[in-house]
């Protein structure tokens, strides 16, 4: 009896982690790219919400969910480019601009999203990976959206690109020392602008997952701070794309503990599991703030580590 309850919870957590982690993955990878170039974008919450709205609207109007995903990326690209451009100007505080972009993005999404709260748009299909197990709960948990795999492949490509390509090296160098990037004839502003815009694009796609797959509809409370959590996630993952995937899965699983315990009748502490990633990240920041090992992994130009 006890065993089956534990298994139920574990399967629910696995399913929850796979379902919930995809938006975390995309905002996390986007933020990782931006921060690697030495800039922070606190506005990804806005990209996520606007992306979700755009994806739903475009999917509804065009009848093609993947077109919605692309449009969501485009809206994220727009906000990311806006952030990147404004931060290029001298004397502008990038953290404050991030919050501004967040409120601008959510404002736009709520404004244009009003007519799309009711209708039902075509949604993304999942790939059933668990049918062979013969276990209904497990099969349901293993209904995986293709975007999940796109995120994982993207992380591997990013990790490889940071380490092995000329572009990856330029981004890392710009993030570590603007002076040496300039000495090499690299335009710091331009690299950061591109990295911020590309990061915004990824966050927009994360938003598309929210409205087109899980929870799978558009409403104003769709993203409860998941975009802001990206900042915590990247610190947690110490600026490594592969670790971003693990962190996203962990954050997703933490969020799924509450509901899965509820399914076997334990309803206490629901909200603390949701807060667990924040508490964990805070402790990691405290523990690593003045350690030399962590300092090696942090992009040197990043304002949040100074």
């Amino acid at each position: 009896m006890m065993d089956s309850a534990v298994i139920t919870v574990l399967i629910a957590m696995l399913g929850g982690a796979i379902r919930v982690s995809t938006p975390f993955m995309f905002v996390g990878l986007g933020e990782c790219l931006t921060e690697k170039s030495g800039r922070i974008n606190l506005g990804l919450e806005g990209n996520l919400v606007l992306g979700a709205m755009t994806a739903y609207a475009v999917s509804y109007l065009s009848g093609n969910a993947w077109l919605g995903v692309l449009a969501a990326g485009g809206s994220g690209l727009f906000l990311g480019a806006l952030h990147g451009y404004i931060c290029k100007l001298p004397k502008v505080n990038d953290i404050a601009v991030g919050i501004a972009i967040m409120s601008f993005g959510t404002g736009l999404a709520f404004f244009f999203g009003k007519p799309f709260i009711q209708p039902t748009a075509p949604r993304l299909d999942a790939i059933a990976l668990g049918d062979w197990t013969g276990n209904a709960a497990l099969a349901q948990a293993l209904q995986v959206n293709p975007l999940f795999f796109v995120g994982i492949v993207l992380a591997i490509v990013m990790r490889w690109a940071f380490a092995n390509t000329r572009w990856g090296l330029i981004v890392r160098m710009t993030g570590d020392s603007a002076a040496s990037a300039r000495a090499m004839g690299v335009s710091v502003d331009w690299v950061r602008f591109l990295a911020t815009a590309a990061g915004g694009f990824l966050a927009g796609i994360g938003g598309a997952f929210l409205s087109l797959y899980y929870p799978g509809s558009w409403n104003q409370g769709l993203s409860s701070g998941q975009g802001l959590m990206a900042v915590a996630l990247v610190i947690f993952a110490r600026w490594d794309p592969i670790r971003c995937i693990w962190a996203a899965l962990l954050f997703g699983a933490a969020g799924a503990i509450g509901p899965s315990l509820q399914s076997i009748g334990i309803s206490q502490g629901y909200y603390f599991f949701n807060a667990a990633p924040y508490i964990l990240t805070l402790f990691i920041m405290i523990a690593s703030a003045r350690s030399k090992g962590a300092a090696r992994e942090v992009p040197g130009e990043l304002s949040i580590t100074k």
Partner: protein
Amino acid sequence: MTIANAGFEPRTRNPNVRTLKLAETVVIPVGALVASALLFSLFLLVIGQSPIDFFALVWVGGFGSAFSIQNTLQRAAPLMLTGLAFAVPARIGLTIIGGEGALVLGGFAAAAIAIPLVSSAVAPGITLAIMAITAMLVGGCWIGLAGWLKHYRGVNETISSLLLSYIAIAIMNFFVEGALRDPASANKPSTMPIGDAYRIGPMPFSDVHWGLGAGVVLAVALYILMSRTTFGFAARMTGGNPRAALAQGLPVGFLVITCCAIAGACAGLAGFFEVAAIHGQANASLVAGYGFTGILVAFLARHNPLAVVPVAILFGAIAAAGGLVQRRMGMPDATVLVLQGIIFVVLLTSETLYGRIKFFQPGTGADRT
């Protein structure tokens, strides 16, 4: 680095230079507001609405009648307090964005401590005083913790205050859904209502609650503290150059933590007024985004506590007009959010203009005294 410099402007006796400096800090934000209004008008024209109608409605909804003025001031009160919660640490060079959490936790603490006091029929005046003090203490400790982590552990205060903000909201939800839940609150889990007898009343001659009075008084008090006392001077000096401040033997740790605690106390007090004057209990309505709008208010006020008051009233008016715009023009209630977002983005972009407009830059040499 803008924030650090904003609080540290060299004083000069030359009246001409001072006037130009003052003119710069007024003209640039006002110019940004005008530019935002123009951009938003463009937005309205694109979607086929009349900008003139819109701004006329904002005026009517914000200041057009005694009722709308009171509505405006009602909404301005928490914005003043959360604006101060960003402005004061900004003077010492800290970007604290966790005002929302301090507001929520302060409001929750006030509602929680009211439960035993109300049930044992302590006098309303004493109960409210204890509630307010609790809210300020809890909020102050919460943001003070971010300050402590910054100074003694080197943890970035922006991110830590943001994380603390989410933890605060989780703490409130945990208790409101569990141990402190009023069984009667079926759809919206809340703490026990404090009861009408314990609600905070309106100020004399108005329907506006005392939060507005507290906001104005605190703004003046914090202005005096930051610009007319040794404490304020030391804080601004630390904001300008922390290394120099340490070298001068200033108590930097004390200054940082105190400024953060003041900020948290302001936000916590805002939470107290939301509970004691508006909702009568603590629930998810406390998470209304006042903490984030307060950041915008503080930026437009150039981190000057006195300027926070009129700016908060301006944003109170925009928020108050939202309902009217929705009804009369058939536009979504998020319209004012778009306007706020545009103002926020344009305003921060305008920061780049400081010191770059020739007109405001007095020539060197002759003007130096």
